[in-house]
């Protein structure tokens, strides 16, 4: 229970920081969100800046991943956000397997277990080297093996570096899942469990919401929030600041608290990309698990044990 409170406290704090940037757009988005429907109040208050610079408190339910935030023509969402080149850096020295990125992501994208768009894996590179935890989202490769094989243009690479899926186009052949060497993609094997009223909401590949049965989905790098300067939930939910997100064209990444020059961070900390040999050119870099914040602790609890609830 205490954890729960801590989390929401922190969430408030982080959201406040992150929201400042996209205040104007969000203000209008909230008004839209409110006018569209009346979501259930969660009681969790979040401070946001409105268009005229006032700090107001709203219920967190208004801040969900709402298509109204980014209602954009599908065609436009295939091109991407102009001038941006989104990038992620994950500092393996900071990851303590708190699994908050997974929870944050699942909450934001209305995903229920066992589907995890970001996973945390126990890795051990060489025989004698020490194990470490590795958060693994979709790598949004610059030479994506997944978009290469799609027969119907359902998954595509955008100019801003993001690889998205249009689940209204997807035929569910799962070739992209077979082609992804990182298993970053998930499939809606059954009817997805969606919040009430979700099916009436307009779909956009940028929100990946609402999900549809028989289609592929994956980590979308949250472009609907990114375009307003809001960080993805996996970044803000991490209590250890493991995940950095930013714009390569600005040479900067942030985890919500610390902001670094991307080029310097990668240079000074010997950043690398997972399985560079494959030539997929991921847009997610890792900083080696050195100078760790936590000693490696074996995870004795299996977290993701429940299969689909359907049937």
């Amino acid at each position, binding site marked *: 229970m205490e954890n729960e409170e801590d989390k929401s406290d922190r969430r408030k704090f982080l959201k406040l920081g992150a929201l400042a940037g996209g205040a104007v757009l969000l203000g209008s988005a909230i008004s839209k969100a409110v006018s569209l429907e009346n979501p259930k109040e969660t009681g969790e208050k979040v401070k946001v800046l409105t268009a005229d610079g006032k700090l107001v408190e709203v219920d967190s339910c208004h801040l969900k991943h709402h298509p109204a935030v980014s209602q954009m023509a599908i065609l436009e969402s295939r091109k991407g956000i102009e001038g941006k080149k989104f990038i992620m850096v994950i500092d393996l020295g900071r990851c303590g397997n708190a699994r908050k990125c997974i929870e944050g992501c699942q909450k934001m994208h209305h995903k229920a277990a*066992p*589907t995890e768009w970001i*996973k*945390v*894996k*126990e*890795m051990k590179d060489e025989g004698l080297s020490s194990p470490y935890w590795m958060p*693994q989202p979709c790598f949004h490769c610059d030479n994506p*093996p997944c978009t*290469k*094989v*799609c*027969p*119907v*243009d*359902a998954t595509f690479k955008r100019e801003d570096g993001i690889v998205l899926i249009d689940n209204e*186009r*997807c*035929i*569910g*052949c*799962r*070739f992209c*899942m*077979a*082609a992804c*060497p*990182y*298993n970053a*993609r*998930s*499939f*809606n*094997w*059954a*009817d997805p469990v969606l919040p009430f009223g979700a099916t009436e909401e307009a779909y956009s590949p940028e929100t990946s919401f609402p999900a549809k*049965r*028989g*289609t*592929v989905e994956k980590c979308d790098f949250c472009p609907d929030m990114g375009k307003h300067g809001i960080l993805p939930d996996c970044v803000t939910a991490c209590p250890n600041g493991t995940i950095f997100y930013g714009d390569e064209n600005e040479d900067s990444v942030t985890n919500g608290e610390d902001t670094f020059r991307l080029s310097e961070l990668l240079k000074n900390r010997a950043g690398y990309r997972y*399985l560079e040999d*494959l030539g*997929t050119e991921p847009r997610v870099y890792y900083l080696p698990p050195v100078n760790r914040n936590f000693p490696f602790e074996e*995870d004795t609890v*299996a*977290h*993701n*044990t*429940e*299969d*689909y609830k*359907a*049937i």
Partner: protein
Amino acid sequence: MNTEHQILTPELAEKQSLRREEMRADVLRPLEKIGMLGKLWIAFLVIILLIGCYAYYLQLKDGLIVTGLRDYATWGIYISNFVFFVAISLVGALISSVLRFTNFTWYRPITRIAEIIAVAGVCWAGLIIIVDMGRPERLLNLFTHPRLQSPILWDVVVVSTYLTTSVLLLYLPLLPGIAICRNTLTNKPKWQRWMYKFLALGWTGTEQQWKIMKRSIKMLCIIIIPLAISIHTVTSWLFAMTLRPGWDSTNFGPYFVAGAFLAGTACVIIGMFVFRKVYHLEKYITEVHFDHMGKLLVFLALIYFYFNVNEYFVPYYKMKGAEARLLNDLFSGQFAGLYWSAQLFGMFLPAVLLIFKKMRKPGIITLIAVPVVVFAWVKRYLIVTPILLNPYLPIQDVPESWMNYFPSWVEIAIVSASLAGVLLIITIFARLFPIISIWETLENEGIELEDLDKLNNEKA
């Protein structure tokens, strides 16, 4: 073709006509009445097909959740089965075309068996791949939003082209046969008589008709060889174009093609045995044919063995990272039983046993061919599933059902139905049309029906 062209004297023509009548009677006899056993067989296949339809209805209703597939083993026996069907369909090209360009003539009575296996296989390959789709109702997206860069699109093009070519290659040499049915089977129901009449295309055996038919067949035989190689190479590319350890292989195209010829030839041997027994065609499908097919099977098994060495021994020698895990899984892990059985019964044993002439007798060679087909299917399962369950990143912290793959009853029912569907197409075809080509078989005996027809038409 290579027989000496004799001058057709009236006496010789008389003799040849008698032979033709005899063969016509032999070949049409099975079509006259379906026995009890035949009816039961069809009923059995239809029931399996219906169960499969019900299973597919459930899958359409609830989604692919009803299968054993999950995020890691994202492809399963539907895809294995697809590859298997494509594989057996290659034999049509092998028997009716590759052998045609050699100087052999012995294969001619079995071309039709090979062709109908090819047509049935490729038909169901197309259907089973739709079953694997999460959104089959969006199939048309392939044509409205095609992405030429995707091997799936290439597969769609090649499969449809190969189907068309195979149907034509089945149909064209069948024309004289249909004409015979039209002329002889006059006691059949009206729809059947109408069908014969329609399909015979007014075949009367004129010189012109023979000429056009033979030329068309020749053209088809030329294009079907590259097509057959393409269809299976492209199918192998569904795997080889990915970066997964085990699929990321430049050997996959020829490896698949070689395996396909082997599996298809074994299918034809079984088909020959069944039709010979059930339709009493001992006079036409002789022990010589089984002997030749046995030799062909040895040859193909050895070629397949060669590609297997390349496919498994080469990476085994290196034991490269992620691939090592997969190879251990296959050689001594959870798939070892299936893997070694497939290699032993599907390749080694047939290659060794069929070297001996005694083993190439109809009964024994069929006993050897059955496991070749069964394990050809298993081999395709081993090409799909173990690779998906051995990805680069470890499979961790997922529900138990995600770590393994075992097909659900729905999948098994649908795959069984597709197998039954292949057999049903072959059965129904063989119930309606002569399963042996009369003119091609007689040509093998030095009797040119073209010349006979010419003579008869002149007389008339």
